């Protein structure tokens, strides 16, 4: 049967589906949407830029980051992210990826801390080196099992502090990380909330960051994930490469141990 477009437009009324049927199928349909996105992840554009940034001679000392030790020896990127955060003797502290990158930019490339940390997160044409570097470096841990060791006392201390921060309720809304991420099978609006106190939940969540967020058109790093969760928790602003960020990351990364790393991912 063929009808003219004009007549069809004139009669354009939405056929309302029964609410109950819709509610049931909503979750399935969202799953299909997510599946359709998997085929082309714009994070690849960030990965390419990150690899170039890693290899480019930059900074006052005009050297590349290829001498940077991410924990597995200078210049070793493959699998490094799956073992972060970790204790670095040369800095005598526990560092996550972003903190380590800043350390290398300062000590090896000669940037000042202020210059190095000017743009932790990108926004459109104002782009972040960290999100590009994180996209590439993490992609080099794809398929590697998470293995955060906690062998050093400072690593164990970071884990314990991170756990306390996870349950810390504050701000006008009384929110803690655990408010949204402490129970299994919950959603906020239509977004599934991983239970980060549960092994499977922690593994699924941690191994799929960084991610290209289609809602923002940006690759977001793990520190961004924490930063923006705290914003929505109504907390003050989390400082980039701060001790709280590192401690919380240590807690979450360790809980994901054993799972294959699978990022950069693509998410809503």
């Amino acid at each position: 049967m063929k009808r003219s477009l004009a007549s069809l437009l004139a009669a354009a009324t939405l056929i309302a589906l029964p609410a109950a049927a819709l509610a049931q199928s909503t979750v399935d349909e969202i799953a299909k949407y997510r599946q359709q996105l998997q085929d082309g992840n714009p994070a690849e554009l960030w990965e390419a830029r990150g690899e170039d940034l890693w290899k480019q001679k930059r900074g006052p000392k005009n050297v590349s980051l290829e001498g940077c030790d991410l924990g597995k020896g200078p210049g070793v990127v493959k699998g490094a992210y799956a073992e972060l955060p970790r204790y670095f003797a040369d800095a005598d502290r526990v560092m996550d990826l972003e903190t380590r990158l800043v350390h290398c930019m300062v000590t090896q490339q000669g940037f000042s801390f202020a210059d190095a940390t000017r743009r932790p997160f990108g926004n459109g044409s104002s782009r972040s080196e960290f999100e590009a570097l994180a996209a590439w470096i993490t992609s080099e841990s794809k398929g590697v099992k998470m293995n955060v060791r906690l062998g050093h006392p400072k690593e164990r201390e970071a884990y314990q502090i991170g756990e306390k921060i996870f349950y810390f309720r504050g701000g006008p809304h009384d929110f803690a990380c655990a408010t949204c991420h402490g129970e299994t099978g919950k959603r906020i609006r239509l977004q599934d909330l991983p239970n980060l106190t549960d092994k499977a939940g922690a593994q699924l969540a941690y191994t799929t960051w960084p991610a290209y967020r289609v809602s923002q058109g940006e690759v977001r790093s793990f520190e961004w994930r924490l930063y923006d969760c705290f914003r929505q928790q109504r907390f003050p602003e989390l400082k980039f490469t701060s001790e709280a960020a590192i401690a919380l990351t240590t807690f979450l990364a360790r809980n994901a141990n054993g799972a294959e790393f699978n990022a950069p991912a693509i998410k809503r």
Partner: protein
Amino acid sequence: MSPRAALSAALLGALVAAGCATMSDEEASRRALEVMKASFAERGQAKLDRLDQDETQRLCSIPPGSALPKDVAGKLEKENLASIVYPADGKLLGDWKAGERVAQSGVGKQFSDDPKQPSGANCYACHQLSKQEISFGTIGPSLYQYGKLRGASAGIQRYTYGKIYNSNAFTACSNMPRFGHKGILTEQQMKDLTALLLDPESPVNK
């Protein structure tokens, strides 16, 4: 023991067994607060005093589902109940249409929000409320047909308004914000939400 409590215990147990736990629980709490104070910066309306916990927040910084001792919970609920201020005019039902807008809005109190704009309650983030809105969360129970199931007696109105005002008055350590007690919503907004839940014409009760 709940699975998550079991996991926490197992992780902690593993640390202790390996002779690894470096700090006592109290020391870890103290260090965590110290670390947080140094790790956050004031921005916009979000000042550092947001990290100063009141007693409810301090006692409730535990895994969700792990219960406080009964007497502690009872004391917390009593204190929170005493904080509820009911409207002076005695009217608890506002305009459900305005309530629906408040329930949909998730802004307010974030450092990225304009403090001059009213806050939302973001009810849909956690609760199902109506048939029409399919994008709802499940952190809290479904409130669909809330009024139809309960009626709108003076007692129900008072409980509903009170629950919005201070959820911890009825359930210690509830996940739900204390909208009145913490000054998130205005009295009128809370009346409008009460109407959204109880008015027979509201989509909640259709």
